[in-house]
């Protein structure tokens, strides 16, 4: 089991008022699964992503990731977990503007303490894998949205993390680029990569094999995605 969440609550304080963002979340994800988390905006899916991604801590509950009891670890250890066990993919790509594609992919390797030479070799290999072998030295403003997201995926894969965590990965892309990115996800999934993807778009969620629906901070549905694909009018 890669992810196990038990009775997770997350409560934000807004002045005197407690605003619950997540209520009693119980969730297990096995290795190799491709899971979509779907929900309206305000349903708590971003909060859930932050907790699963070790970017913030739950108010209460237990979280195990790849055998680590995350909520008992200090901040410094969470940084190491994010570096080695999680690959992040964001809607807005989050590439560093003044760096080349190669340098962007090198970043997680640098923070992992990999030698400069090995960083470059690995980054080149990953960019080739996502089809950008002839864009290695391009800066992010010289790349299309789809290409930027590919760089971000290569960066997410840099330290071969067991979990790929994607937050609306196609949200800023045109439909063709979006399709290409989802195809790449499927390809990674077939190679055994665990992927958790957050989206508000049911059509995209359809590409996953399991769909978890969040509403008002609670899991309201957890089902195989292909069975529940809705028909859009």
């Amino acid at each position, binding site marked *: 089991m890669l992810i196990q969440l038990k009775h997770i609550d997350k409560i934000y304080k807004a002045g005197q008022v407690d605003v619950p963002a997540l209520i009693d979340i119980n969730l297990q994800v096995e290795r190799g699964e491709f899971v979509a988390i779907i929900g309206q905006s305000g349903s708590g899916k971003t909060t859930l992503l932050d907790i699963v991604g070790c970017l913030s801590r739950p108010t209460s509950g237990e979280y195990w990731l790849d055998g680590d009891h995350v909520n008992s670890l200090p901040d410094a250890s969470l940084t190491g977990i994010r*570096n080695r066990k999680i690959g992040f993919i964001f809607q807005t790509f989050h590439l560093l503007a*003044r760096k080349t594609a190669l340098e962007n992919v090198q970043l997680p390797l640098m923070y*992992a303490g990999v030698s400069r030479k090995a960083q470059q070799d690995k980054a080149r290999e990953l960019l080739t894998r996502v089809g950008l072998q002839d864009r290695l030295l391009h800066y992010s403003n010289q790349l299309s949205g789809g290409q930027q997201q590919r760089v971000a995926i290569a960066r997410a894969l840099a330290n071969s993390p067991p979990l790929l965590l994607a937050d609306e990965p196609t949200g800023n892309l045109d439909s063709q680029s979006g399709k290409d990115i989802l195809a790449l996800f499927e390809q990674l999934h077939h190679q055994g990569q665990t992927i958790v993807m957050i989206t508000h778009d049911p059509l995209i969620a359809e590409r996953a094999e399991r769909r978890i629906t969040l509403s008002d901070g609670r899991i309201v549905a957890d089902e195989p995605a292909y069975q529940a694909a809705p028909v859009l009018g």
Partner: protein
Amino acid sequence: MLRSIFLDALKNLSGNALRSGLTMLGVIIGVAAVITMIAIVEGGQAWLVHSLERMGTNLLFVWKKRLTVEERHLFAGRNTELRYDDTLAIQQRFPDLLVAPIIELDGQLKAGERDYSGRITGTSPEYSEIRNFRPDSGRFISSTDIREWNRSLILGHTISEVLFGSQPAIGEEVKIADQRFTVIGVMEPKGEIYGHNYDEMVIIPISTALRFFKGTDKIQSMIIHVPNRQHMDEISGALHQFLVQRHEGVDDIRIRNQGEFLSAVDQTLLTFRIVLGGIAVIALLVGGIGIMNIMLVTVTERTREIGLRKAIGAKRQDILLQFLIESTTISVIGGCLGILVGILAAYGIGDLVAKAMPGGGDWGAVVQPTAILIAFGFAVGVGVGFGLFPAMKASKLDPAEALRYQ
């Protein structure tokens, strides 16, 4: 890792070249101010020490005080003049001291077709030693010259050139009024010290001056060399007492101690140090605040970048180091440029002072390696010190919030 953080820092700085340049300007001005300030004050000190060495050290100057009308009336008939006898009496009473009487006359020198009008100084053999001022060729006044009222003449470097050009002057005849003098020495070039141009001096034996031009034994002043600096005040007091006694109890003597003059100048230099040092430190602090300001802006601008770096595995100290290196790079580059500007400014101002100050011809700024080190160290300290707060702020950002910062 450090290398790539450093390269990142350089890239970020060059990406915002105008901003980085303006931020550096604060450090440049601060460092340049420190270096210039130290160089100018050191230059002043060196100049002072040097000119004191040239004019002779451990000196006492004795003058006759001007008496008021009442005093003159009151002391009528008493011996109230500074006389050549006084010099001899002092020399006898205080054998350790070197005493030179001084009398100054205006006169015209004629050597063949050429002539020169100026001041003629009558003094004794001791003058050369006391003033550390020696003949380049020939000799200085001897005791024989004094004893025999010899019409011996010693010329300053410039006067020798005026009267004889490049020809040797020794042995030549020079007429002063209607007296024939023989040139026995030409002094070494010495230049001007405190408005007195040694190269324009014309020196004759005191006895000759008194006998042929004055007809009295009144002198104008004395210069006295004290062998031990520690005893200057003590001897000054004893001399005063001795002279008042010789002048039948009339206190018409004034003795100036070179040390008093020295400490007055030292005091002035200290004041300069404090004022200029204060200004320099303030300039550096303002530069540092400029760095802090810009680094805070940079941290805010790059909140999302910081969030991302943290999300993909940057530890707090990685972020801290990144911003600290950036601010330190600004201050190090600014410091290097400031050293350059400071040295140029120091020599530039040194030249101006040398030209503007009477007798400051050999004045010059002294840029010492320690001053450069102090200024540079200060600059780096400012970069680290003022960069620390923004860097801490960056390193403490919450990754989830920073990632979604708009």
